[in-house]
């Protein structure tokens, strides 16, 4: 049994999501290798070699995989699978983009967003926006799996794996990278943050969102999240969305401000350790999952909270 983990990175740094996938991979009970595909990502390969429990790192360097688009990644991963029983991706947008493509090429069903490994064939995963947990057993010879980061601890960094070079695929491919527009933020990354403050439609405007949420987040060293309503209204960028179709978070502290608590939002945060809700509607469903609820006008309560911390 050998398991391949596809590293998540931006060519400069290895994402913490990878360490979490390595933890899930170790539960398969075999050797764990990590594939680092990128351009000029030597530092990432070196970082992956230090992740505890990794046997070896495969490093593919080339322009074709610089942005890890699905087609070249498929061309790289599928032939490598001759030597592996399973391939695991983080359930990030990058992982979700690649994994099903690889699975279809291998003619196997992909298993999405696992939250537990029962054995090398059996997994738990949430369905219906997290309102049910399904245990599935795969009859496929090879497993292609995406791993929900919040369900696994990050593997440590006391490893010393060897790094082997593999060829990046040559192409040409039918898709090409044009540009990207990344949200710049000095705050912690949402999916891995220990504390998250999240704002909803009740904030009323992008200005109020920034004016109230950012100082509170900075005071707590928290990441900022948002409900779909707040994102749709343009108060916050897409990338901030917490929920079934946005980011799944499980921080130690989640503060929901002006968020009613729709099923789709709860799907993204109900595994948080402590949930605080600030909402003026005492009937809001968010209070049913909140450990501490404050029925108050957020425009008064939030500055007061920021001041009191």
């Amino acid at each position, binding site marked *: 049994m050998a398991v391949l983990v596809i590293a998540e990175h931006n060519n400069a740094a290895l994402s913490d999501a990878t360490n979490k996938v390595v933890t899930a991979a170790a539960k398969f009970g075999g050797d764990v290798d990590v594939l680092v595909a990128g351009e000029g990502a030597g530092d990432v390969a070196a970082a992956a070699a230090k992740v505890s429990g990794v046997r070896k790192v495969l490093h593919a360097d080339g322009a074709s995989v610089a942005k890890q688009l699905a087609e070249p990644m498929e061309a790289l991963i599928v032939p490598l699978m001759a030597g592996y029983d399973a391939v695991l991706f983080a359930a990030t947008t990058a992982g979700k983009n690649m994994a099903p493509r690889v699975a279809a090429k291998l003619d196997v069903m992909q298993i999405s967003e696992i939250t537990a490994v029962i054995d090398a064939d059996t997994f738990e995963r949430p369905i219906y926006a997290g309102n049910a947990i399904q245990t599935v057993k795969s009859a496929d010879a090879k497993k292609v799996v995406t791993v929900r980061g919040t369900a696994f601890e990050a593997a440590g960094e006391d490893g010393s794996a060897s790094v082997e070079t593999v060829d990046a695929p040559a192409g040409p491919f039918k898709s090409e990278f044009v540009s990207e527009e*990344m949200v710049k933020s000095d705050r912690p990354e949402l999916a891995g943050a220990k504390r998250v403050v999240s704002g909803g439609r009740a904030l009323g405007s992008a200005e109020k969102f920034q004016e109230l949420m950012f100082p509170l987040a900075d005071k707590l060293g928290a990441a900022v999240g948002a409900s779909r309503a707040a994102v749709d209204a343009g108060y916050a960028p897409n990338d901030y969305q917490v929920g079934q179709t946005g980011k799944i978070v499980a921080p130690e502290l989640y503060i929901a401000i002006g968020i009613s608590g729709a099923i789709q939002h709860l799907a993204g945060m109900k595994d948080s350790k402590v949930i605080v809700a600030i909402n003026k509607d005492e009937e809001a469903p968010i209070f049913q999952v909140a450990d501490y609820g*404050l029925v108050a006008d957020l425009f008064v309560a939030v500055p007061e909270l920021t001041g009191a911390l």
Partner: protein
Amino acid sequence: MKVLVPVKRVIDYNVKVRVKPDKTGVDLANVKMSMNPFDEISVEEAVRLKEAGTATEVVIVSIGPQQAQETIRTALAMGGDRGILIKTDETVEPLGVAKLLAKVVEEEKPDLVVVGKQAIDDDSNQTGQMLAALLDWPQGTFAYKLEKDGDALTVTREVDGGLQTVKLALPAVVTVDLRLNEPRYASLPNIMKAKKKPIDEKAPADYGVDISPRLSVVQVTEPPVRQAGEKVEDVATLVSKLKTAGVV
């Protein structure tokens, strides 16, 4: 340009699902069903492409029970031209769906397939990517914006950290994200007109594809229930509770 839009009949997004006591699944008896919300966005985008003169025909396809015909009718009322229902009472996994869709693509020869990024029942987020792989077509997943540009399609994608723009050679598969558009409501006259639009009825066997499931469901359980919390009087009390809990 011909556009194919797969749609799925799912439990309505507002319904709170209940797990069956025998743990075999969730209870779908007498529950309101609707078109998967992401698929409404796919249909809307295809219809907009047609209205802009970019698309010539919009073909709607659904795989599911007889009632999935209603889902196709809804899409036709939104502006789809005709439908294909691949009728089955079995649960078809994304791989099986992708294989059936690949056959439909072979027959229909669309230039673009627009798929919802995920279905809100199984939350898989796989079908579009699998279809692209089976066809060896490029994929533009989680589309935030799309524009046809000669023989290519420029797709801006919602990715972790922001937006990414890619250029795909047509034919291609695009999966749509929430922000691509605001789906229209079908008007009553259009609902009436949709009743006259043709729907071809097929069976999985017509396509000669093996769609037997690869995954078996061992059990379906309720997620852990959170302990009921408490309401606090004021901000000062909240802060002291959070300090006691050790989270601030």
